[in-house]
């Protein structure tokens, strides 16, 4: 499992060298937080920022994870992945390294968003709350980045990956409980939103905000992450390039 850390270390070195990337991934969630969180006239709550902040935190993880698959695609197009697959190191260490990097990078970005949210006046200043939010985001990040890394392994090139990414990202966000509570949604949207894994993560954070332990949503996320990881490991073990 040490090898997983070496793969991760490599991606961190690369990431920190590309300074534009570090910044660009933060723009979208920050914009949501400021322009929607502060400006949207909403009637169902008097503190929309508090309501939307969990959604934006999860959106940050979502964006980071979706973008993360392209790292594997990059290795594949470069021919680097072929070398990795011919290494004696267990192949899942490539997968775990990528997942860990993507998730930790997402958490770093989420930290910045969390700081902005707190500065804007959202009520998050509770160490236990923040720690449990990180735990939820971590599980969610693993779930999604594992899916995206496996998709990247299977699809042909950057274009196909970008197409899948575009197809998945916005619908996942808009059909979640990020922007409004279930009782404010039209019935059909609420039905979709209750199935959406993004809602699971958001609802878990909202429960934590309200001081409730989100047992069911957390369990749902954990089971989802475990299943997806299992499938991904199998796909990676059998990968031929």
């Amino acid at each position: 499992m040490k090898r997983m850390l070496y793969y991760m270390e490599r991606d961190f070195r690369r990431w920190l060298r590309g300074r534009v990337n570090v910044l660009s991934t933060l723009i979208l969630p920050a914009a949501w937080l400021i322009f929607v969180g502060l400006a949207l006239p909403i009637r169902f709550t008097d503190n929309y920022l508090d309501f939307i902040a969990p959604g934006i935190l999860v959106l940050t993880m979502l964006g980071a994870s979706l973008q993360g698959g392209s790292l594997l695609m990059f290795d594949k197009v470069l021919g680097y992945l072929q070398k990795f697959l011919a290494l004696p190191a267990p192949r899942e260490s490539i997968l775990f390294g990528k997942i860990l990097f993507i998730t930790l990078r997402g958490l770093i970005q989420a930290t910045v968003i969390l700081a902005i949210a707190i500065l804007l006046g959202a009520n998050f200043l509770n160490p236990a709350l923040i720690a449990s939010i990180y735990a939820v985001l971590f599980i969610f990040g693993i779930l999604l980045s594992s899916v995206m890394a496996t998709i990247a392994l299977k699809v042909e090139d950057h274009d196909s990956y970008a197409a899948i990414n575009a197809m998945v990202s916005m619908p996942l966000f808009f059909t979640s409980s990020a922007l409004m509570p279930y009782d404010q949604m039209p019935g059909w949207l609420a039905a979709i939103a209750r199935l959406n894994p993004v809602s699971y993560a958001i609802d878990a954070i909202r429960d934590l905000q309200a001081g409730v332990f989100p047992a069911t949503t957390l369990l749902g996320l954990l089971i989802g992450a475990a299943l997806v990881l299992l499938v991904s490991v199998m796909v990676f073990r059998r990968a031929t390039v």
Partner: protein
Amino acid sequence: MDTAFTYLKIGSGRSSSLATIETSGLTKRFESLVAVDHLDLAIDREIFGLLGPNGSGKTTTVKMLTTLLIPTEGDATICGYSVTKDPLAVREQISYVPQDMAVDPKLTGRENVIFFAKVYGVPRPREVADEALAMLDLAPRADDLVRTYSGGMRRRLELAQALVHDPAVLFLDEPTIGLDVAGRRRIWEHIIALKDRGMTVFVTTHYMDEADHACDRIGIIDHGRVVATDSPAALKASVCRDIVSIRADGPLPGGLPEGVAFLGRTDGEFRFEADRGDEMGPVLSRAFARAGLAVRAVSVRQPTLDDVFLALVGESDDTEAFDDRRFRRMLRRR
């Protein structure tokens, strides 16, 4: 090159009754296409060059031997380990340098090599990386970003990466493609030095002159079948003997030396075929002089691997219409 390497032990004491690489009936089919057809090879502590036209099955063969593709039929062993039954053990013994320049441009040369040493689980990754870099003459530029490296340097960096775990077998897919003349020569010098240390090198290439110069043995593959395997010299000898051309005026003198066959005459140039052209040239020249003919020029042309290749494979490639979808499918499956 012969400095003592403390941490990097290339070719350190191996012995086995089996040849390092052995294939028996190795076959790969993609639907109706037979990419590799019952390959039987035995390769041991030498530079083995696999030559063939595009799409002849070279890369598919390498991918099967490096456990990246599962054979449809047959098997191969690397250092006694089967590629189908024991792929992990095979991967411990080999290094694979694919055709694309697979180095990370955003890392420095040293970081690239250290990364591989760590992933291979080498005990002292930093020291091993330093030595591998020194061995490939990359030490002075080791801390520059690979983005700034030339093509030749990137290739050498790939070789350095491939050496960190002291592999018994090195697979190189088109190692000199896209390099300038000096870069190519340098890569081959390094490859030959590795063989001299006891490593088995399996290389695919399009460049006949390079294969002729560097490979101990050559296999020529066409439509997935190996049509010939031998040393470059033996292959060349099998195709045709040396051609001696003599420019002189007058009729063909009588009493030709033994073992020389007269081929024909065009515009005052006599052409002969002989076993040792370099020795027969002067002999023939003296025979001409004795007959009172003024010899104006003597030239000897030895057959090249190009001749061998064309004789065995022909120029028949690209006869089929280019089927884009099939091509893409093949690329994907390779």
